[in-house]
């Protein structure tokens, strides 16, 4: 009886009509997932990261997390600070020249973090970094970006490059979430490869959007202030 009923249904009736919400995410092997979980735990313990959401809530909606850049650990620690469900739909944007060097790094970037690698040295007009990011992000993935472009030398937050503005302009509906990273530059400073297990603090702020008609420099200054404001 029930069998007959099922046979009468076509596959289209059984399947959820809404499209797969994560079309651009490649399924990761259980091993890579385990490595990811282990690294996230290690990063949190090592960097002693306390996570604060200030006037903001963790959410799986599509977002761009933009942060000050102080250390090679930044992307990993932000990624590890997100709840697991959000981590699974969040892809760090990282420099190709650093992350594709060596077998281990390349494997980590591609298979574990599912990072979007951007070539900083060879930027093409028809293939701009922003286009690559948006194409890779699709309609579901969140991104972690560092608008300063490279790690700060002094520990001060530098001027933001214009990528964030073009991201916001092309996809105005995406939430832009400011993130402030405190003390990670002392855990692993520029030019060092052994971390000192100090305590760091990752603060997520309230999302912002590009206002209609807002000028590029105004927007970038506002975004930078939003990051600095989280420093308290």
């Amino acid at each position: 009886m029930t069998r007959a009923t099922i046979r009468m249904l076509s596959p289209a009736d059984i399947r959820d009509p809404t499209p797969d919400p994560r079309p651009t995410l490649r399924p990761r092997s259980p091993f890579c997932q385990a490595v990811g979980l282990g690294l996230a735990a290690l990063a949190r313990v090592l960097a002693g990261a306390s996570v604060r959401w200030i006037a903001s809530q963790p959410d799986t909606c599509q977002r761009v997390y933009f942060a000050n850049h102080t250390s090679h650990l930044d992307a990993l620690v932000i990624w590890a600070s997100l709840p697991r469900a959000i981590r699974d739909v969040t892809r760090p944007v990282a420099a190709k020249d650093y992350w594709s060097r060596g077998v281990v790094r390349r494997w980590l970037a591609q298979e574990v973090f599912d990072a979007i690698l951007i070539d900083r040295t060879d930027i093409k007009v028809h293939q701009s970094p922003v286009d690559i990011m948006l194409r890779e992000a699709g309609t579901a993935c969140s991104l972690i970006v560092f608008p300063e472009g490279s790690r700060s030398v002094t520990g001060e937050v530098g001027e933001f490059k214009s990528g964030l503005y073009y991201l916001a302009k092309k996809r105005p509906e995406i939430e832009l979430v400011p993130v402030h990273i405190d003390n990670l530059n002392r855990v692993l400073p520029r030019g060092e490869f052994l971390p000192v297990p100090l305590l760091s603090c990752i603060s997520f702020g309230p999302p912002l959007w590009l206002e209609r008609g807002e000028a590029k420099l105004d927007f970038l200054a506002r975004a930078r202030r939003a990051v600095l404001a989280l420093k308290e």
Partner: protein
Amino acid sequence: MTDNRTIALVAGVLTLLTAATAVGQFLRRHPDRGLDLAAIRTFNSRLRGWWILCTVLAAAFWLGTTATVVLFGLVSFWALREFITLTPTRKGDHRALFWVFIAFTPAHYVLVGLNRYDIFSVFLPVYATLFVLARVAFAGDYKRFLERTAKIQAGLVVCVYCVSFAPALLQLKLPGAEGPGSNFRLLFFLILLVQFADCMQYVWSRMLGHRLVAPTVSSNRTWEGLLGSCTSTALLAAALWWAAPPFQLWQATLAGFVVAAMGFAGGMTMSAIKRDRGVKDYGTLVVGHGGVLDRIDSMCFAAPVFYHITLLVTGIKP
């Protein structure tokens, strides 16, 4: 560990904590008694801290000496993280700090665990100091050299060296000991006195405090609090002298007095450092509970003195 004195001590502590919790909960449910609500909240959160402390300690004691040494090692490690995090260091200190965290701190606790008093009593104050001085010099950054190395040194001594004297009590060969329980009772005696002294300092300062010791450093530590805390802690130590194996009555009383005074000094010292850095608490391990270092500041100063008092008055060789 199942001797009568240990059972009596555990039962006493459990009774006290349960009674205090009952009172705290009663006061919380009946806020119309004209008592300070903030004080009740502080009291209840302190009690929660003590329950956690007692549970963790009981578990460590039950697992044995090594587990207890490891537990104190982890506490030291975390306290040192908080200390160095709040102390500005320069990039030239990075390599020195790496070895301090990864090698010196664990190695010191290994020596404590192996009961090598002859080495661990000089390992950090001498060898770690020499290493830090030389490593920072090798890094080539001479700016404020003495100030920077002194900070690392102070962190190591306060957070690691001093704290480690508490688990080192477990290694002493106490005269007339009735099994391994005696050493655990001695350590618990110290922890109890330190906690009690902290509490009494607060109570006496609130009740009778007029003369602040150093208003610029701490706005609630008074001479009356210090004296009251020393006296009450000495009385508690006298009342509990039977629980601390090597002591006679007067020795336990003296230990209580000195532990309270040292605990007070530790609190003052940490306040001075915190004031200089412009923060109230050291960490955010549990939100609203301060950091590990805020919890153990009194212990840092009291532990080595208590250890050496034990050696002196009982004539034991380490």
